[in-house]
């Protein structure tokens, strides 16, 4: 994405979709800079929030999802006020990784975290976050603030292609805000304890919270969802993320992570039967969550075991209620594991939906065939290439195999167009 660097400072509050913008009449043509008029976007001096950057297309405030490759596919990052839905892979091996990258990015950027799970204690989830890969410059920055932690240098000196050493480690796209946008993480190491301790986080562990009695009637939401919604609403209000609390001038992002939403552990039987009586619980929860997010400075990641949901209609409704939807399909246990087409990768990643916010168009990537692999340290997303047909005598069977697999590469992105045949161009 060739993106011209725009002014990073002063663009944060005026561009975000949160209530600060909804209270004042902010247009995308507003001049970015200190404002003399007393709007309640935090006074005359606008401070850009750490770890965010405005989107070039529409000035929307974006946060990183923790994976710079995924950020690029989503059009620069995850928009503040939206939901990123991850459709879990079959054995739930890779989706927790994306979940943890999102949370780790929040810790590094200094955002507040809200972790909700019905399976694991949020404190345990935070212990397992990946450690950030730091290069020299950023290490100095971190040393000044926090603590001299001994993360070993992971980039070996290049001997042959030494010119490439001088290139920046990741593409610097977009404006450089006060701290970097998007970091790389080492999946084999744990995040240093000090970073967790200095970060601000709230945990929601369902078995602990469900024991307290309900003060409100259920109203067709499952008990677990209702508690979670109240918890999120409380945090947003009390910490001032929605700008309504006059005492709290919050200039930070709340990163919400909800794990395995919709699974039976949340008390919802949508994954167990096809016609459950409480089938609107999940969609209603998503709608109310969307309402809370749109009016606050927060971004949410939800992992959902959609492969377990029996009723396809519910999956369609859930997709409509979420903004960004990414599906993971791992090869483990499927016939694709032994397919020569996929031998270098661990699974496919499908970008099913990208939101069109404040705009008629969205930044959709042209590449539809994406695969991911988890190397020892890094989680990478790459374009899937068909291997070249180099053999002298091309046997009929092998060619047919590849053609079959190519057909299975998935339909085009549901956002723009879907088709019966797979002839993207």
């Amino acid at each position, binding site marked *: 994405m060739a993106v011209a660097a725009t002014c990073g400072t002063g663009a944060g509050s005026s561009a975000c979709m949160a209530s600060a913008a909804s209270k004042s009449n902010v247009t995308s043509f507003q001049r970015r800079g200190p404002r003399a008029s007393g709007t309640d976007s935090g006074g005359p001096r606008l401070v850009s929030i750490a770890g965010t950057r405005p989107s070039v297309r529409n000035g929307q405030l974006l946060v990183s999802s923790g994976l710079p490759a995924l950020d690029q596919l989503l059009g620069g990052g995850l928009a503040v006020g939206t939901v990123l839905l991850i459709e879990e892979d079959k054995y739930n091996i890779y989706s927790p990784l994306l979940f943890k990258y999102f949370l780790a990015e929040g810790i590094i950027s200094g955002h507040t975290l809200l972790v909700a799970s019905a399976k694991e204690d949020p404190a345990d989830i935070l212990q397992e976050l990946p450690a950030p890969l730091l290069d020299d410059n950023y290490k100095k920055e971190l040393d000044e603030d926090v603590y001299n932690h001994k993360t070993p240098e992971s980039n070996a000196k290049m001997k042959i292609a030494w010119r490439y050493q001088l290139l920046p480690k990741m593409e610097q796209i977009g404006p450089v805000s006060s701290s970097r946008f998007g970091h790389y993480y080492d999946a084999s190491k744990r995040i240093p304890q000090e970073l967790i301790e200095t970060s601000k986080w709230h945990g929601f562990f369902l078995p602990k919270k469900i024991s307290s009695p309900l003060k409100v009637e259920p109203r067709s939401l499952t008990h677990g969802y209702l508690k979670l919604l109240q918890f999120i609403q409380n945090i947003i209000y009390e910490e001032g993320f929605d700008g309504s609390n006059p005492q709290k001038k919050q200039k930070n992002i709340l990163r919400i992570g909800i794990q395995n939403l919709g699974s039976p552990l949340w008390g919802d039987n949508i994954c167990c039967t096809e016609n459950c009586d409480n089938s609107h619980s999940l969609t209603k929860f998503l709608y109310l969550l969307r309402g809370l997010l749109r009016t606050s400075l927060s971004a949410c990641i939800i992992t959902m075991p959609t492969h377990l949901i029996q009723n396809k209609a519910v999956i*369609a409704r859930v997709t409509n209620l979420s903004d960004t939807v990414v599906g993971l399909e791992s090869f483990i246990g499927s016939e694709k594991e032994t397919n020569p087409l996929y031998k270098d990768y661990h699974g496919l990643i499908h970008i099913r939906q990208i939101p069109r916010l404040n705009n008629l168009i969205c930044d959709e990537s042209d590449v539809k065939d994406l695969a991911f692999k988890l190397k020892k340290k890094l989680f990478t997303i790459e374009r899937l290439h068909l291997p070249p047909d180099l053999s002298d005598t091309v046997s009929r069977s092998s060619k047919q195999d590849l053609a079959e697999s190519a057909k299975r590469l998935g339909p085009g992105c549901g956002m723009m167009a879907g088709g019966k045949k797979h002839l993207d161009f």
Partner: protein
Amino acid sequence: MFPELNNLLNITPDRAEQGKLTLLCDAKTDGSFLVHHFLSFYLKANCKVCFVALIQSFSHYNIVGQKLGVSLTLARERGQLVFLEGLKSSADVFFQAHGEPHPLQFLREASPGNLQPLFEFVREALKPVDNGEAAWRCPVLLVDDLGLLLSLGVGAVAVLDFVHYCRATVCWELKGNMVVLVHDSGDAEDEENDILLHGLSHQSHLILRTEGLATGFCRDVHGQLRILWRRPSQPTAQRDRSLTYQYKIQDKNVSFFAKGMSPAVL
């Protein structure tokens, strides 16, 4: 509004039809650009608009509206636009134990019965002002997105009843127009959605159906638009007219062309 679409539909802001129900339907693609089109079209046509926006926030429509040449904030201040923002008030309505009736009251109920409070809201918003001056032309009701009510627990029949009541009031009594958007779930076998969609297709005067291309994703042609004119009141009459165009969405405009005549291909 998109001038090319106005030409295709043969309407102009000065000469808007009255008493029509338009159904916007999208299958496997995003048809929300049509909502922006009709919103800016009716605001420019000086009509009084009641917009029930359930799926996106006010600032989203406002920013896109400014690209298309209308200011929603200005229209709201003048009284031309009545905007019900579902997302903003949803959490408050839900957690309120009791209290004054709200158009989104069905969120509070365990098994929502009907959409009567919502209908009352629409009727109140669009009723002609009594002081005699005809400030605005025909009233218009816009709903984005009607299928969302099914996700919130309202039954398909209740939604059809709501549409029926609104049609009786807005289209027949007040001689206004209605535009609703419903997503077509396609092969997702959503029965309630299908009931709603078929019921609405039967009642509408104009159906705009956006679909993806049969071959999949294309960078230069974003989809296909099928326009179907219907005369539900005259069952026999002429055959329903149907046209198909392909379109490409740009930053401030949508360009339409005949099938296969995309400028990228020619």
